[in-house]
């Protein structure tokens, strides 16, 4: 492992023999369970996931195209009070992001106020001029958001990035819990874990809530997928199945008289709400990319005629762009008149000359990312990179500064994780899922991603990351009594 300048990480279970209260039960279990038992549980979990067929296609790499995302059996735990604060911060942030979207496709007050450079928004590739002046049903743009959080201390949580387009991973959150209930019934029963199994119902309610008025009392909802070759196809079929709605591809739908229909064995059937898991530019060859075969010709016409709802709304991506991210705290203050509950990670925008100079001078301390990228591709973790890698990246940044942002290398919190040599701390992040229909709801917890390689800070599943079940405890465990021997 290369020399690191990252400060020591906060371990969520506790350090130096001191166990944080929420982890007391887990610590007891880990102390009692031998390595063989944990190994056996790990193998059992893998067999379970393979049988269910949860796989994740990873592109541009060789090997098994349908490999599993590794699942770690040691859960990540949040106390009720920790979660309450996070949850309030997430709701606040999603409200602000939605207000921002209504604004930039409407009166543009925030641009006039000079709080965000107009070019950054209006010339952003996530900005859809087709949406100018349009109000989506219920005024909701981001029906499903995934907001990535990291932690560096007991009370230090940061938003790493917002995902307002089609955030994935929620099926892993649900399946991880199912796996834990199966593998560790006693351990689960000993904790009051907030349930998450109602997520599909909540999602369906959210989608029905934004159905157009013409839909009638029982709107028809579908999930629109790019198809089996998409990396998240398992999740698309899982969610459709759990909600009891059809999983459709573009070719299953057609538009007639500004109304969307699906092709069924019983003839055309009207569709009212589309939870689309395909990107904006592929939605409708008439409106966006004419070569798209994934979308539905005329879909945008039907949408703008108010005959169908799309979740998330086209154009929502401008709110989660990495170059817009630094301005989200300002949005919270501007639209809500509140102080942000969740902090941003300080971010240097390389297109600003003074930021660029700082970034180039401090590459060994920073994480550099593409302003528009995802999945951990095209990323430099300065402290872990070699001199040659840093130099190569410096050249790339200098050539196209606007493409890059940089952040300090945070010492992401760690959680004990089963590794080949036993149990060891590994860095984690958290992606909670926020639903916005009639109101904003957050299912307690989210998807914890874990960097399985020692010292690695990259948790993306496409970069060898794994996942953990995330427990939100219904009540804070009582602190151990004075003088008790503990365990």
């Amino acid at each position: 492992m290369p020399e690191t300048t990252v400060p020591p990480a906060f371990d969520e279970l506790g350090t130096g023999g001191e166990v944080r209260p929420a982890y007391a039960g887990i610590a007891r279990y880990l102390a009692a369970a031998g390595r063989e038992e944990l190994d056996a549980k790990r193998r059992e979990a893998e067999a379970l996931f393979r049988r269910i067929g949860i796989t994740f296609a990873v592109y541009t790499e060789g090997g098994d195209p349908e490999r599993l995302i590794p699942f770690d059996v040691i859960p990540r735990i949040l106390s009720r009070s920790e979660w309450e604060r996070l949850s309030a911060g997430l709701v606040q942030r999603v409200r602000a992001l939605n207000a921002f979207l209504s604004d930039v496709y409407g009166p543009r007050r925030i641009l006039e106020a000079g709080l965000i450079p107009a070019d950054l928004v209006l010339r952003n590739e996530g900005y859809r001029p087709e949406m100018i002046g349009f109000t989506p049903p219920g005024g909701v743009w981001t029906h499903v958001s995934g907001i990535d959080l990291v932690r560096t201390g007991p009370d230090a949580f940061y938003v790493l990035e917002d995902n307002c387009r089609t955030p994935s991973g929620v099926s892993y959150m649900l399946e991880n819990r199912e796996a834990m209930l199966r593998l560790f019934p006693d351990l689960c029963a000993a904790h009051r874990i907030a349930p998450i199994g109602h997520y599909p119902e909540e999602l369906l309610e959210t989608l029905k809530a934004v159905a157009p008025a013409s839909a009638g009392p029982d709107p028809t909802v579908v999930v629109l997928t790019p198809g089996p070759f998409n990396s998240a196809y398992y999740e698309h079929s899982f969610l459709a199945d759990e909600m009891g709605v059809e999983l459709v591809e573009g070719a299953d739908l057609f538009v007639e008289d500004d109304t969307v229909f699906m092709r069924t064995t019983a003839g055309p059937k009207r569709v009212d709400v589309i939870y689309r898991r395909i990107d904006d530019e592929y939605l409708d060859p008439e409106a966006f990319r004419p070569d798209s075969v994934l979308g539905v010709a005329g879909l945008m016409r039907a949408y703008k005629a108010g005959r169908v709802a799309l979740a998330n709304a086209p154009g929502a991506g401008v709110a989660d762009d990495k170059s817009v991210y630094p301005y989200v705290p300002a949005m919270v203050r501007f639209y809500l008149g509140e102080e942000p509950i969740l902090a941003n990670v300080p971010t240097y925008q390389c297109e600003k000359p003074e930021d660029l100079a700082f970034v180039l001078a401090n590459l060994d301390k920073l994480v550099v990312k593409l302003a528009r990228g995802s999945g951990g591709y095209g990323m430099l973790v300065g402290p872990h990179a070699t001199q040659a890698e840093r130099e190569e990246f410096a050249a790339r940044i200098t050539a196209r500064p606007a493409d890059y942002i940089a952040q300090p290398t945070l010492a992401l919190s760690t959680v004990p994780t089963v590794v080949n040599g036993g149990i060891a701390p590994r860095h984690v992040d958290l992606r909670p899922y926020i639903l916005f229909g009639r109101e904003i709801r957050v299912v307690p917890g989210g998807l914890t991603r874990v960097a399985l390689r020692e010292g690695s800070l990259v948790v993306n599943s496409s970069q060898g990351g794994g996942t953990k079940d995330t427990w939100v405890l219904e009540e804070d465990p009582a602190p151990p009594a004075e003088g008790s021997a503990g365990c």
Partner: protein
Amino acid sequence: MLSRTADSLFWLGRYTERAGNVARGLSATWRMAMLAAPRGKAEEEWRALLVATGGAPGFLARHGPVTQASAIHWLTLDAENPSSIASCLEAARRNARAVRTALTVDMWAAINDTWSELRKVGPDVVSGDRLAGFLDWVQARTLLFNGAATDTMLRDEAWHFVRLGTLLERGDNTARLLDARHAAFDPKTDPPDPSSWQAALRAVSALRAYQHVFRARLSPERVADLLLLRPELPRSVRACHQRVHGLLETIAGITGRRGDCHETAQALRADLASARIEEVLQGGLHATLTRIIDTNLRLGGEITALYLSGR
């Protein structure tokens, strides 16, 4: 149900059935070819099977003259042949994956495990004395799939479309295999060709069934009767079309839609139910089978137009 889902289920049924049928046909032909080799007639056997599986033009275009090795490779592992066992199982699995949630876990496991096993085998698995074992394995896997479907699927729309594909393919297969040997069933053929009759029975795993039904020496009338018109043989053309018709009626009840396919299936079923084998042979077996194969093709198109294409 989405038309695309129904389409995938239908083709899942068809391709799985076709893989098993190619294995059966190949087993019978391989045996026949061995026996025919001393008379220098082995190539004729392979040619007949290539015609029956509908791949003769493609084969001849790519390989020229028929040899045993090239025919076996074409029918088992050749990705260029859309009806090779490997292509069928690949297509079946592709269709299964597209409708993963409409299948039971057992059906998915049956088709997915078969597919992943097949990806591991090399070309030597179909050479020499290993061929028979491979063909047995393919048949066992398709039986497992059918068993998993029968034992675990809800009797809903999905089930009916899988079975529709399976039975349409099965009836078509029996008709084609019989037609490939139609000359042997011509009463004027001299000398009689009992080994061809036997091969026709073996190709649909019906040799024992013949003995149970007739308890008599093989005769061309009785063999043709069994394969074409007997309702109790599950692979006879009549038995298959009786069920195809029944499935289409059920689907019409579920979807509230009926069309040309229902009339075609009903007419074919009625023809087969009233036909007598003496008249069929007098009129020419080949003519009858050609009509049935053509009708079958049209029926598939009509089913697609009404239910599977979403128009």
